[in-house]
């Protein structure tokens, strides 16, 4: 952990800077400490501490009954977590890559998401399924996908995607305390540093970013509240995860006075923040890394059009990944980077 003391007047404030992995690890540690019903399980999360190190040290500190490895069976991981939730635990299963979540879909969609409803509140499924998602790490088609729209389509699930270490910790604590099942997608491209999309430039570490300042101890970032990344007048940018940083960097590079919203939670969505921003700017660009057709951008575009139509001065623009599998060697051709985003901005602002 980095400790960068900053001086404010006479007082010295320990401005702790963490990367996203450290922030997530800390949130898990705090929740294991605070709530004896929280348990963590998943492939390689125990002794080893996870392939991305998100659970490092937690088994040694909290014991094998609280943090343990599982068989390679996503169906079993989610299914067992539903049963544990019915018992009264608050499971935080990890799915090693979002690309591997599909064998657990029936347990998520038909079971976890429906349990409160179908039992009229007799049973709940207070799970938080953590899973690294997104590409830009040369992960090929099976370590790069962004399947968030599959989950936002499911009534009963909440979908949360942080974009900074500060939010990752606070949102994860909120998700774990939430009594509904939450899909918590962690943009793995920005685990170690905010990515601007200029893949040919050197990587910046988190410690240079203001949102790597992570308070110690317990705090929450509420679900359903967007973060205003930047105030502006020219156009609204709706983004989440990695793409918040990419969109912001492109707007800066082009000198565009953008109003940028980091949605943080896709369901429930902060519709008020979206409406307020689009009503102000009259132009809206939606950016996500996932494939285009039926992506969450389609939902956002529809909402903006339905609710802000008379404020719009240009058609809503979606900037997304292409409708292909994530190609290994051509991932930067797939990725909605500065060129694609730049074109959309030009189109939105041309009149």
């Amino acid at each position, binding site marked *: 952990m980095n400790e960068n003391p900053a001086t404010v007047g006479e007082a010295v404030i320990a401005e702790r800077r963490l990367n996203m992995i450290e922030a997530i690890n800390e949130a898990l540690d705090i929740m294991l400490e605070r709530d004896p019903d929280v348990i963590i399980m998943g492939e390689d999360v125990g002794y080893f501490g996870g392939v991305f190190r998100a659970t490092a040290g937690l088994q040694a500190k909290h014991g094998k009954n609280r943090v343990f490895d599982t068989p390679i*069976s996503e169906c079993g991981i989610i299914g*067992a*977590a539903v049963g544990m939730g*019915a018992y009264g*635990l608050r499971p935080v299963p990890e799915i090693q890559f979002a690309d591997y979540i599909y064998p657990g879909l029936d347990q998520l969609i038909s079971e976890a998401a429906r349990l*409160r409803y179908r039992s*009229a509140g*007799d*049973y709940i499924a207070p799970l938080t399924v953590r899973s690294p998602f997104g590409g830009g790490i040369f992960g090929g088609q099976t370590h790069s996908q962004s399947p968030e729209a599959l989950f936002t389509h499911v009534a*009963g699930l909440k979908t949360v995607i942080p974009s900074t270490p500060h939010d990752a910790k606070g949102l994860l604590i909120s998700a774990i305390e939430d009594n509904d099942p939450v899909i918590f997608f962690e943009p793995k491209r920005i685990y170690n540093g905010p990515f601007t999309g200029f893949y040919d430039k050197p990587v910046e570490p988190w410690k240079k970013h203001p949102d790597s300042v992570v308070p110690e101890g317990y705090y929450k970032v509420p679900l359903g509240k967007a973060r205003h990344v930047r105030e502006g007048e020219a156009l609204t940018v709706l983004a989440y995860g990695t793409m918040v940083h990419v969109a912001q960097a492109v707007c800066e590079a082009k000198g565009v006075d953008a109003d940028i919203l980091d949605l943080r939670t896709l369901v429930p969505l902060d519709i008020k923040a979206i409406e307020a921003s689009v009503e102000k700017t009259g132009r809206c660009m939606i950016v996500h890394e996932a494939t285009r057709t039926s992506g969450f951008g389609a939902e956002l575009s529809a909402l903006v059009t339905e609710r802000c139509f008379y404020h719009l001065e240009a058609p809503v623009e979606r900037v997304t990944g292409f409708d292909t599998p994530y190609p290994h060697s051509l991932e930067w051709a797939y990725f909605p980077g500065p060129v694609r985003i730049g074109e959309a901005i030009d189109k939105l602002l041309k009149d």
Partner: protein
Amino acid sequence: MAEPAKPADTNRPALALHVPEPKYRPGDRADFSHLDIGQPGDQPRPDEGVHPSQISGLAYGLIRVLGDDNQVHGPWNPRLSPDTLRAMLGHMAMVRAFDERMFRGQRQGKTSFYMKCTGEEATSIAPAMALASDDMVFPSYRQQGILIARGYPLLDMINQIYSNRADKLKGRQLPIMYSSRAHSFFSISGNLATQCPQAVGWAMASAAKGDSRIAACWVGEGSTAEGDFHSACTFAAVYNAPVILNVVNNQWAISSFSGFAGGERTTFAARGLGHGIAALRVDGNDALACYAAAEWAANRARGNHGPTLIEYFTYRAEGHSTSDDPSGYRSAQEREEWPLGDPVTRLKKHLIAIGEWDEERHAAMDLECAELVKATTKEAEKNGILGHGLHHPFHTMFEDVYEELPWHLEEQAEQAIRERITKFGTERPFG
């Protein structure tokens, strides 16, 4: 240069695909003499802490207690008191009376759907009685016997079947998909075998907390083909979970015979052996054998010796559900030819044989059950029946999707209520 790969042999024989076919189809004479059902009392009863590898024979044989002489045989006799036996018989009679009435209710248009468990009553009632009342059960859709055995009110069952105003599940679930936390009875899904890893997870949680309660799930032999069942076995074995995995092999999954779940090749109990799970195969129409097997498995789980897979070998005497007509795919003779008889008749004859029951009392009990169900049905009908009115306020449709209503569901709830007013006006409260 590397050696070339082995060249293709042009004289290779043609391969053939095996598509299983049941022995008997409509119109065929059913004959089950090929089944090896052993003899009552011929299977050993090992200590509950035994290593699964030492009892592999029990996964292929058949644990039987009640003989054709209506007496108990062998080491699996659970030695139940006459009072317990009568209670068991009473539960089975009640389930049968309930099934009859609800089936007719569906035919009379009072609800959309019903599923009987005729012939399989022992596979839920006996294990439910062998478990403690606070052990958690994760049933499939044909375990109404558990609720009856645990004293769940008939009125609540019927209200649920009618999806009426008093339905505790607010009319959201298909009939018979009950849920009762107060009775340690998990919400029934309808998606098959999903309850298996959930039961294992519940049992793991109980063990992790140092609790003493165990879990049990029920799944049909057909659904053991689902990945969930195999995930459940893996997790149960890996974590030595205090769980009982009950497989009700009633021979038929709608129109597909057990061969489509692999039943031609081995037993369903044997599924446990590859996982290192203790496995028992039981005469599912012998309530005493069912009780004994469940009691053994419960003792094993409670003693921290781990999971047990029990196959209840039985026969689905009726259709899969009210939406099914088995005369279209299987021989009508199968039910009468089934070599292990009827579970209610067998238990009744045993009680009579030991001088603890008689035909008069049995007839009186059947009548009492039928009358109680009839009276409760009438009581339930006062709360409405399916399709006659929209029984629940429209806002309830949006509740419990999440703990709190997010804005989009609030908006949709307002729309639904607006639509109701458009259709019915503001005069009618609802329904």
